[in-house]
């Protein structure tokens, strides 16, 4: 019995070896590596999140594949969209590089008057400083009347918003600025 098993093993071993050699010797042997055998898309277990392309106004729907640990793996077109049916232009195909990019600035920066460089500052400090500047400027430049007519505005503050600015952001910006009395509220939409 024991004996038999070993003999089986031996023959088995030999046939295996034989097969191996047969597979590896020939006019053009085709031997996939372990990596190749287990190859698969990196988004295999990722969660697709529907988003919209931030470039032109065609409004291509995109899928952002996110891994369990929350890292972005890939961004591509959403095949269900009646607009782009999964297709994207070069800019859209590069959205990944827009979010994941070593050149991106992800800290609050401050340049003091007459300064020659940017320096990092705490978010809290910057926001407090900005809020104060807004109040100060508004209070200094607020006009209640002009040639006997109520105007309740300030020309001392202006804002210019981009066009990847979402609707919600436009709405809040408008609401806030109008309430401050700011009238020079502009957007890429005109530019």
């Amino acid at each position, binding site marked *: 019995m024991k004996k038999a098993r070993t003999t089986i093993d031996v023959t088995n071993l030999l046939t295996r070896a034989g097969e191996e050699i047969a597979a*590896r010797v020939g006019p*053009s*042997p*085709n*031997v*996939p*590596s372990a*990596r*190749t055998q287990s*190859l*698969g*898309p*990196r988004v*295999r277990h990722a969660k697709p999140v529907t988003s919209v392309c931030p470039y032109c106004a065609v409004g291509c729907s995109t899928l952002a594949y996110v891994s369990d640990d929350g890292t972005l793996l*890939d*961004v*591509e*077109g959403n*095949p269900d969209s009646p607009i*782009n049916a*999964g*297709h*994207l*232009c*070069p*800019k*859209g*195909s*590069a959205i*990944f*590089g827009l979010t*994941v*990019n*070593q*050149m991106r600035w992800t800290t609050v920066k401050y340049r003091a008057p007459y300064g020659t460089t940017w320096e990092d500052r705490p978010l809290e400090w910057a926001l407090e400083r900005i809020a104060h500047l807004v109040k100060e400027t508004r209070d200094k430049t607020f006009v209640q009347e002009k040639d006997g007519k109520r105007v309740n505005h300030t020309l001392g503050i202006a804002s210019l918003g981009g066009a990847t600015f979402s609707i919600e952001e436009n709405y809040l910006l408008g609401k806030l600025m109008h309430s401050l009395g700011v009238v020079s509220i502009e957007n890429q939409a005109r530019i």
Partner: protein
Amino acid sequence: MSTGFFTDTTLCIGCKACEVACKQWNELPSDGFAFTGMSYDNTVHLSGTTWRHVAFVENVQMDPQGLSDHWSMMSDVCKHCTHAGCLEACPTGAIIRNEFDNVYIQPDVCNGCGYCVPSCPFGVVDMIGQVASNAAYNVATLNQERRERDETAVQGRGGVAGKCTLCYDRQRDGFIPACAKACPTESIQFGDVDELKARAHERAQTLKERGLDASLYGVGWDSSVGDLNAFFLLTDRPERYNLPPEPVLPSTRQPAGYGAAAAAALVMFACGLAIFGRSPS
């Protein structure tokens, strides 16, 4: 089944989405930033890290009516030949024919001998330079860790051969290749090669009826590389797109080579025997 690309140049708008989608999915670095003045083409050629390349062929007269003007664009890619020169040349077996009948370079096997490069009659395969030594801006969007962990096509510092994988990894899960998926006008079509060929013949026919001089490149032709799994519909001479009109499979020259070498060796042996002779003992 064998899968492949049908690239219809008459639908190409030269947007280069294929180039970018490919680089994004395969995590390839940029090849640098040089203005060429070659129409809108600053990529110039396929490379180890550029697996789709859009060629811009200007046929414009100085005719203000512009009636005779053409500006044709074509997205070039690895042809995934039926008989692939690179595959036959590869001494390590890094280049294989996978279950989809595509020619695939296993980045973990390739040791960078470089023999596949001159063995491709289409000038597709190329060595991937020392990526790590590239200026940071070429790799600004790439994940160093994944490269180090050998999870990407350009592994670690590079030094291997690279070309289109026909998104082997995606096909494994039934995703279509990145370039074909991105292509806005469906100039790049992916699918079963036989279906694609049928579609291509039909398309060529319709275009001929519309008076266009359309021809298929890499289908049912007399070439030792056999039909191409990635074939093209062209409206101009292949040379204008930098495609060889009659590619030759390099290995077809081996018999001649070995024969000549053997003959020479025999002559040498003969001379040797004559000169040295046999030992008296």
